[in-house]
């Protein structure tokens, strides 16, 4: 249980950190994002990497709660209630990111990149909220059976 919770928290820290440091790296030519070797390519990759980490974190938190719902609800109903508040938002911003991505891929101009930042900020906030919902409310020892995922 502790390891699983740590994993979710670590993943959140990692994807936030990724956004801050990824600019130092370069894209290998010939890769899926190295289309023009322009600055825009690494910025788009950064958006994609950040989205994928945030998505994976939110997805893991939702799945963890769903797979262990009975036990977690008995422990603290607010875990489910908190996640239920952000589930519709997560779907909304997931869809917004994908729609924005499709537009950018069809017309990759650097001026479109800031749109990603707004959506990613929302998704990152949802991931932090999801982690907090699980992490902060399961701190006390639980005499419940938790499955692995």
């Amino acid at each position, binding site marked *: 249980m502790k390891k699983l919770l740590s994993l979710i928290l670590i993943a959140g820290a990692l994807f936030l950190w990724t956004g801050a440091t990824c600019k130092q790296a*370069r894209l290998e030519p010939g*890769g899926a994002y190295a289309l023009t070797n322009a600055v825009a390519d690494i910025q788009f*990759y950064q958006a994609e990497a950040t989205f994928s980490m945030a998505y994976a974190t939110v997805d893991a938190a939702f799945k963890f709660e769903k797979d262990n719902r009975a036990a977690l609800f*008995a422990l603290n109903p607010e875990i489910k209630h908190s996640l239920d508040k952000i589930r519709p938002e997560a779907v909304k911003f997931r869809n917004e990111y*994908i729609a924005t991505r499709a537009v950018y891929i069809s017309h990759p101009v650097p001026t479109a990149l800031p749109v990603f930042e707004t959506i990613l900020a929302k998704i990152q906030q949802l991931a932090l909220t999801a982690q907090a919902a699980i992490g902060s409310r399961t701190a006390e020892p639980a005499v419940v059976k938790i499955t*692995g995922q």
Partner: protein
Amino acid sequence: MGTTAIIALVLQLVEAAATSGPAFIIIAQKGREIIDALFTAKLISADQQLSTKAYVDAVEAMVNAGIVPDHWKVEPDPEGR
């Protein structure tokens, strides 16, 4: 957050994933790939780019198919609570 701390976190991440279910392994793999790219080579390899693109493409395919995973849906509270 320093480099040493980041690497320590990722090692914990990988260790945790090794004893957890498949849902967490994806996150661990991403963490390892990112660390390798940024601190070992300082280069996002073609494979890393392909991995990231494939992951987001899979999410896109779900969105385009109108799929919302069950664990992303709001469901009634467990009965008797």
